[in-house]
């Protein structure tokens, strides 16, 4: 396969592709799809408690979007020959991962704002370059997804802005949420480049366009002025504008914590997975019924209508 930079057209499902490329893509798309559907949980819990009908509608639509993102991405993975059922099984049995960020709890309404602003914001920084990734179905799914993520990010910002200009209790709630979600959001970009051995290969294949640290820096540079506009502080004493680099300097995330969360020992890993597995198992009789009904109907039509 030629290096991504020398290729103009995208790779399509029927094109020949190296095994490693296919495997890496499946793993990345599946992990992304799993993140979308596990990500429904922390915010989904607040649909019931949203403090105004307008916010309730916006949040319900957002969580619905995330389910839709999951659908697009599982469909993209299916074009590589891996059915959704197989990928869900890998998620449910812990063989495939999802983004570590969703293993942190949502403790107050302000967390819905912080997730929209920071988590959807970080997702956008990660995903916009993927709209030009080398695999066509993935790139096209990302274009649709990124449009919706930017809505989510704006809505999250707006929630926090309203809270930070509200009552003292609302303001405190907003600051607390940002304090808790800031560092985990920085960890969404993965380990530092020095500890990310697959980056070079993924970049050569065109399924990654920037390194983890480059994307993390880009995110910080975007978030700092936005935090100022919100009137909220970011919990990093080392944040400082660096005139020479033209970027914000920032502290080092606790990558040992990231490793723990990725290894399954974050605050909510067990709950999130149990919730997903329960939904899947509780729904088994429904999926079986749908399959049985479809089979009966197919049998009925084939006995009624003579074959053409």
């Amino acid at each position, binding site marked *: 396969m030629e290096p991504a930079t020398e290729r103009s057209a995208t790779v399509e499902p029927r094109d020949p592709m190296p095994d490693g490329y296919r495997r890496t893509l499946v793993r990345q798309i599946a992990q992304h799809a799993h993140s979308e559907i596990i990500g429904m949980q922390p915010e989904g819990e607040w649909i*019931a408690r949203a403090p*105004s*009908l307008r916010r309730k509608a916006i949040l319900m639509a957002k969580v619905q979007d995330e389910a839709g993102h999951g659908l697009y991405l599982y469909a993209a993975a299916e074009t590589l020959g891996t059915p959704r059922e197989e990928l869900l099984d890998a998620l449910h049995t812990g063989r495939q991962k999802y983004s570590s960020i969703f293993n942190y709890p949502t403790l107050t309404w302000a967390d819905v704002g912080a997730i929209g602003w920071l988590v959807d914001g970080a997702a956008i920084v990660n995903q916009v370059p993927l709209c030009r990734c080398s695999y066509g179905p993935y790139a096209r799914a990302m274009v649709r997804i990124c449009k919706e993520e930017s809505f989510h990010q704006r809505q999250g910002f707006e*929630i926090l802005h309203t809270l930070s200009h509200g009552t003292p209790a609302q303001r405190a709630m907003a600051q607390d949420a940002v304090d808790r979600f800031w560092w985990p959001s920085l960890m969404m970009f993965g380990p530092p480049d020095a500890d990310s051995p697959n980056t070079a290969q993924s970049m050569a294949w065109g399924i990654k366009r920037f390194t983890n640290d480059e994307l993390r820096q880009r995110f910080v540079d975007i978030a700092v002025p936005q935090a100022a506009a919100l009137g909220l502080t970011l919990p990093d004493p080392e944040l400082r504008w660096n005139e020479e680099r033209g970027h914000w300097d920032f502290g080092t995330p606790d990558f040992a914590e990231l490793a723990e969360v990725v290894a399954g020992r974050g605050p909510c890993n067990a709950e999130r997975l149990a919730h997903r597995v329960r939904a899947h198992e509780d729904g088994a009789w429904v999926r079986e019924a749908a399959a049985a009904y479809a089979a009966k109907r197919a049998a009925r039509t084939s006995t009624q209508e003579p074959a053409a």
Partner: protein
Amino acid sequence: MTADFLLGLADDALVTAQRLGWWVSRAPELEEDVALANIGLDQLGQARGLYAVVTDLEGLGRTEDDLAYLRDAPDFRNVLLVERPQTDFAVCVVRMLLLAAWQSEVYAVLAAREGPARGVAAKAVKEVAYHLDHAAQWVLRLGDGTELSHERTQAALDAEWPYLPELLEPAPAAPVDPASLRDAVLGRVRPVLHEATLVVPELPADPPTGGRAGRHTEHLAALLAEMQQVARAHPGATW
């Protein structure tokens, strides 16, 4: 009377949206997470549209959020059908079938004549037609699917059916007398149930009722406690 009647419709829709919201991330398949969220959003939109009409008619300066968040259970006017727990998928779709059949008829009448709710109803007619179709498709699949799904759906129907008469109680002074919709509603529901190989229960002689007068089951207060908790913890706050 018009405001009272519309408030009942709005509360039906809000409580339904609240119950459907629970399913998001818990549905049997991902397509259904999307569909139930979609239907919940439609119901929420109808509730908001109707609350706007009601607050206008009242002229007391109340907002949609005052109605949703600052009333206690006895002030809600929804039917009992929608407020009971709904964590079984068969219950979810059977209830949706009954409610959507009824809403289809009510909104069709309101959309066809001059009145303050005409605009809301015209939009809602199209939405609940989809809800009705979605519910009917599932009732068919479950009723005529496996032995287990048939049993569970029959049990759900037996549990939900006694709550149907409350929707059809006479209210001659209302903009739409629900009693006049009885044949049309049953005409929408019965053929689906038959085709789904389900046994349609008798309508009970003395059915549970009281929602339209604010006499609810114990479930509504619990539902509202959850829904209203953040808003009430911060009186006067803007969100």
